[in-house]
């Protein structure tokens, strides 16, 4: 039983990180109605940006948020305003293919610039653990992931509920036509929404870089994690996204514990396929 507590603990903490990875995809899926197949790759782009700032300025990884977050907001805003907005409303395939193209471009640019070597954002935080109750070893970085995850989700929730921009974003997502009639420039709102989604991707990217190693082609792997979180948690629910992250984290680590580390990802996929089949709108999703 004590052995089992360790993967459960780690799974829950990892869930916080998964929630940040998923929330950006969920926002864009819900608001722009776009499946951003490049989400994972853009997140890894943020990891590399952080790496560059770390090497240039010699600052610890957590400080690179200051640079990575605005940079990713800008990238997201420009991508949405000048590329993705142009293909919206032309059917289902064009935006999907555009995002797929972006994913390929990001991956191969990273590969050309940074070579396929494994990288990580190393700091003393990545190796420290706290011992609890004599047998539980909690890696400090997992704890940080979880806490930042909680903060990001609650701040985003408050932002969408309380500010004018947040309300405008929700209005544009509920009914684009009605929002336009109320004087909201929905295309502009979409660009801001993508910018905000990329802020979450930047935060996720830095944390992923601190927690795991990353390569130019790890993006799709995190995209499937983001899908997992969104599908298990359901669209349009912040709490759902957070719990979705935790369920996926638990499924992976418990799967790894019982079936061996090679099958850790598989158990996550199986849970995902079961949820997709039984309850396509997600466990916490609203029925539309």
């Amino acid at each position, binding site marked *: 039983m004590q052995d089992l507590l360790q993967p459960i603990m780690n799974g829950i903490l990892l869930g916080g990180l998964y929630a940040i990875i998923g929330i950006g995809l969920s926002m864009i899926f819900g608001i722009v109605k776009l499946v951003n197949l490049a989400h994972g790759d853009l997140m890894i782009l943020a990891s590399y940006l952080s790496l560059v700032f770390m090497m240039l300025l010699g600052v610890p990884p957590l400080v690179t948020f200051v640079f990575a977050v605005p940079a990713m907001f800008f990238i997201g805003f420009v991508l949405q305003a000048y590329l993705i907005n*142009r293909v919206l409303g032309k059917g289902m*395939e064009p935006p999907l293919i555009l995002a797929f193209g972006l*994913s390929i471009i990001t991956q191969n640019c990273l590969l050309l610039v940074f070579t396929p070597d494994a990288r990580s954002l190393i700091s003393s935080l990545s190796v420290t653990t706290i011992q609890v109750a004599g047998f539980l070893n909690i890696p400090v970085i997992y704890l940080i992931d979880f806490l930042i995850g909680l903060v990001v989700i609650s701040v985003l929730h408050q932002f969408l509920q309380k500010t004018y921009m947040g309300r405008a974003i929700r209005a544009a997502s509920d009914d684009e036509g009605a929002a336009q009639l109320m004087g909201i420039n929905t295309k502009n709102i979409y660009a801001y929404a993508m910018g905000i989604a990329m802020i979450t991707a930047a935060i996720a990217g830095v944390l992923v870089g601190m927690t795991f190693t990353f390569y130019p082609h790890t993006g799709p792997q995190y995209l499937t994690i983001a899908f997992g979180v969104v599908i298990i948690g359901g669209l349009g629910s912040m709490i759902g996204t957070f719990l979705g992250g935790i369920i996926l984290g638990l499924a992976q680590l418990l799967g790894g514990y019982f079936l061996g580390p090679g099958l850790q990802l598989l158990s996550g996929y199986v849970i995902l396929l079961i949820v997709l089949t039984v309850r396509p709108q997600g466990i916490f999703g609203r029925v539309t």
Partner: protein
Amino acid sequence: MKILQQSRWILLPVVVAALITLPLWGPSYWVLFILLCSLYLAMAQMWNLLVGYSGLISLGQQCFIGLGGYTLAVLSVYYGIPIWLSILIGGVISVLFALIISVPIFRMRGVYFAIGTWIVAEALTICFASWDYVRHGMGLFVKPAYELSLNQIYYAALAMGIGSVILVYILLRSKLGLGLMAMRDDEGASETLGVEIFRSKLFCFLIGAFVTGLAAGVFYLYQIFIQPYTAFSITWMVRLLFIVVIGGIGTIEGPIIGSIIFVLLQQVFAEYIHVGLLLLGSVAIIVMLVAPKGIMGTIQEKLGFEILSPRRK
């Protein structure tokens, strides 16, 4: 253009005859080129059938590519079963797998269908990479394929390429094809008029799985080496998507043009794979912005030029 269109029933047989006799007069580089074009064409034409005509955006065609390739490798290497029979069984196994996953997958719609099929492929990658029987991630060599000459593989590939075009042409001009196009344009209205949506979609999905599995078998005769991370890779979807999008989604000629352009680019950038992929991504985006219907789709719209029309006059 008009003349070209009117004389198509003379031109098409000439082109086909030239392709069939190619090994007799052409350099072996051309043979290789057409071989690759034909195989990509067969796989892309099937994806086109799913996306362009049935509205099933599958991102998991690599399931069938991997299964077709692995069936060939396992049966011919481990059990000494003849190569062509192994490839055929590979196609059948792909269909069976498609039938099994269709039960959960067809409950999903649109984007969820796309994600679901992709996740199935990712799960298959892990299964094959941790399966002792197929030597984990180390992969298998299809050694019996060394006995074949390039020409034998060429004719198999050509048969797949031309066969896939004829198959889609016949399918689309049949009652099923009419139903499919009605369904793509308006699902609700076509269902009211008696199109059996579920059965038509499932039929296309199974046909797609079968042909893709066969084409993959022939592809791995040429490739010799199969490994789970490449066989079940999403890179396959990148290629198919590029071919169909550039050529024109929902046109029969599109994948033909697309696969020629794709193999050409692949050959030119053979030494700089990443630059080549970068270019593929950029071209796909530019085509989506400028001419979302692709090369053939735009030509059809602007000039009314069609060589193989699914429409009956």
